[in-house]
């Protein structure tokens, strides 16, 4: 099923500047504010909460150049395959109206945080508990299985440059329902400084 992208949620084109991301976010915050004339009679409290949550998810990714780059790469890869995926469950686009009896999976919204320090071994154990295999992460994130194995094996010398590694860790964490930023930072804190 075609899903809204983060760009759709903020109503922005793919080329949007950071300034545009900020302004779109501000506009939507006001639109879904409790005092907003445009939404108070149209939506109930739960719908407003969902809308704000989607906006916040989109904003957090698009405001962060690193996360946005990784997201764009995933989006492009998905489009090449003819499917559009968002990292987070969002309401279907307008072309496919939501079916009232099919609520979004709440479980996917639960974000876990691992105790620090985070090693490759910790990540592997968490992944196995979730019953997710590396191949699944590789196909959803477009990151080669080999790199995912290096991350879990703490083979630091084999890992790509920090900028790429950070994106990889974001995608890996997201696929497991881990907090991407904290996971990446905790893992990278253990890397040798010259990496």
């Amino acid at each position, binding site marked *: 099923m075609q899903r809204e992208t983060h760009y759709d949620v903020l*109503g922005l084109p793919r080329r949007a500047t950071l*300034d545009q991301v900020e302004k779109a976010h501000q506009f*939507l915050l*006001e639109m879904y504010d409790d005092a*907003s004339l445009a*939404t108070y*009679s*149209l939506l109930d409290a739960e719908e407003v909460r969902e809308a704000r949550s989607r906006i916040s998810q989109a904003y957090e990714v698009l405001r962060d150049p690193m996360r946005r780059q990784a997201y764009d790469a995933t989006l492009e890869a998905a489009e090449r395959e003819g499917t559009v995926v968002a990292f987070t469950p969002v309401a279907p686009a307008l072309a496919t109206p939501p*079916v009232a009896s099919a609520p979004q999976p709440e479980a996917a919204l639960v974000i876990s945080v691992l105790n620090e320090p985070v090693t490759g071994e910790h990540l592997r154990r968490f992944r196995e508990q979730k019953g997710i295999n590396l191949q699944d992460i590789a196909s959803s994130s477009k990151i080669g299985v080999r790199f995912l194995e290096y991350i879990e094996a703490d083979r630091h010398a084999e890992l790509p440059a920090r900028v790429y590694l950070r994106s990889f860790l974001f995608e890996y964490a997201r696929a497991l329902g881990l907090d991407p930023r904290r996971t990446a930072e905790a893992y990278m804190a253990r890397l040798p400084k010259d990496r």
Partner: protein
Amino acid sequence: MSEALPVAAARPRRQIWSIGGGKGGIGKSLLTASLGWQLARSGKRVVLVDADLGGANLHTCLGLASPERTLGDFIRRRAERIEDVAVETGVSGLRLISGASDFLGAANIKYPQKVRVLNRIRSLDVDVVLLDLGAGTAFNILDFFLISDIALLMVVPEPTSIENAYRFIKSALYRRLRAAAATESVREIVESALDQKNPHGIKTPLDLLAAVEREDPTAVEPLQREMTAFHPRFVVNQVREDADVPVGYQLVTACARHLGVRSTYAGYVHYDDTVWKCVRQRRLFMAEAPGCRASQDISKIARGLVRGESLSLVW
């Protein structure tokens, strides 16, 4: 009059514009009169129709006494041609078909009468017909709104007005969808949507499409086509502060996201004491004070509508 007009070949076909809004007293008649005045000044041949059949007062906005001939005469066949009840307004190119304020039953005209009025309005030999719709969501009002080429929806930045505007949009759209329903069962679902406590749990047009899809997947596409063709344009009136301007953009965004309705923001009109003073004197502010803020706002809206432009968020 015709000297000011462009040559016939270059003239676009006649257009019907309507001004609705659900709520009374928000300035629909003043907007109708002002847009008409502006269009006539720019060389178009315009007829204003006071389609507020129960509470017609468009003539007062133009500073005219209650016309002797009204739409009521046409409805009751005292006048055979609709042109016969169009009166001059004193502004070149601008005529008025006054509402049927003398005919108490006019707000409930029967279906064949309404079809006759709609067809004759369509056949008027002018450039633009402007329909001033009454308050509320009666079928007559919705039908006039739905036949328009440009359907303007006026709001003021106040809760009751916005609530009524959403109700108006839903009512108009459901009426359109009902007419497009191919089977009795689909028609029943559409009709049920008008009741807020309907058994299908339909709150919005998007819910309605989902309910129809469950009943009969093949019936969805024609309804989606109707939804795409439905295109209200918002005018925000009585803007008092900067924060009132984005309300129009928010309405457009909310309609798209939560109702599945494509709308646009035609423009806004500042609150202006000049308007109030002119209304008191039964003079049209556009003519009396063309330089005032509200007059300039309306000129801008008229230009945008003629050119097919709307306001859009530019960041």
